[in-house]
């Protein structure tokens, strides 16, 4: 993969992210039982040491749920939420069960997002069980990222802003892919575009 994306690749990846986000939002609304809105996806292509800095301040305290993408593709889906806002988001869930509820929500979101990408691109995406923790943003995210960066220094990050409920609680979703998977997604996307236009 090149260090930069050309305009076609960028548009194609954004379109791909939008399709995944569309499936995601239905899944979120169904599982939470509250309205949800999304902001248009954004792309970040950055070296592994800089990805976490795009997500917030290094010492921001965040609850993070991660679903690793395994198999032929290598990546992760990450949901970030401020712990205080998580309490508001899941106010009608017993305190001890809130993390489990958030993990289940992430699991459903990941399934929806990866299922739509797999159908669109013809790439199988396998997902791990969710894992979660609450700590400093940089400390957590760097561990997620190094697993991708062990084989490549450049990481693709597709960010979709998700806001849930009447209070619009932000729960941004990040799709992270290593450089080999990004190259495979771009190649598959180009084939899809050729079929559609040609």
């Amino acid at each position, binding site marked *: 993969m090149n260090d930069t994306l050309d305009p076609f690749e960028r548009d194609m990846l954004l379109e791909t992210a939008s399709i995944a986000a569309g499936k995601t939002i239905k899944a979120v609304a169904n599982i939470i039982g509250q309205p949800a809105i999304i902001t248009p996806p954004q792309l970040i292509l950055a*070296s*592994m*040491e*800089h990805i*976490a*800095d795009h997500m917030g301040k*290094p*010492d921001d*305290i965040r609850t993070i749920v*991660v679903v*690793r993408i*395994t198999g032929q593709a290598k990546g992760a889906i990450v949901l970030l939420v401020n712990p205080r806002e998580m309490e508001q988001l899941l106010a009608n869930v017993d305190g001890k069960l809130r993390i489990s509820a958030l993990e289940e929500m992430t699991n459903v979101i990941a399934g929806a997002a990866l299922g739509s990408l797999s159908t669109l691109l013809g790439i199988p995406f396998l997902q*791990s069980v969710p*894992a*979660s*923790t*609450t*700590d*400093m*943003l*940089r*400390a*957590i995210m*760097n*561990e997620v*990222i*190094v*697993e991708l*960066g*062990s*084989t490549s*220094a450049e990481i693709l990050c597709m960010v979709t802003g998700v806001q849930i409920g009447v209070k619009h609680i932000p729960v941004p979703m990040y799709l992270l892919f290593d450089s080999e998977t990004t190259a495979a997604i771009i190649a598959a996307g180009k084939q899809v575009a050729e079929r559609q236009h040609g």
Partner: protein
Amino acid sequence: MANRIEVPTGGYSFAQAPDRLVTIGVGSCLAICLYSPERKVGALIHSMLPRAGQHVTNPSLYVDTALNVVLEKFAHAGIDHRHLFAKLVGGAEMFPGIQQIDNAGGIGQRNVEEASRLLKILGIPVASTSLGGNRGRSLSFDMENGVVSIAAVSATDILKI
């Protein structure tokens, strides 16, 4: 007046008394603090991975190449690495329940093992450590005395090593 110099992930910095080197959010990464008590000069490395591969764009990302670069700079400043001591902070497993992909141990553990191995070969004593667990740490390294102050989200007190 003392300056506070922040070291980013995958970076390193040098400082001398009375300044402090600071790095925030060390999880599975490893912070390697190297200090010359005679000169009151030190360096702080914030590495993410134990060993560099073939295509290295940023040597500070890796424990092995970062140590090489920093020790060369100490040598250029006339400081023999045998007059340094080290303190290690980090090497946590932020998701302890997750089985690692290659079953070779967690990244945090491998970072610690690589640093310990190289420092032993180089003859640089490890004076103290705060390693492992499943919490992130932020640290401040004081060039006046080589003391490292460590804060964690779950801890109420600052740990000094």
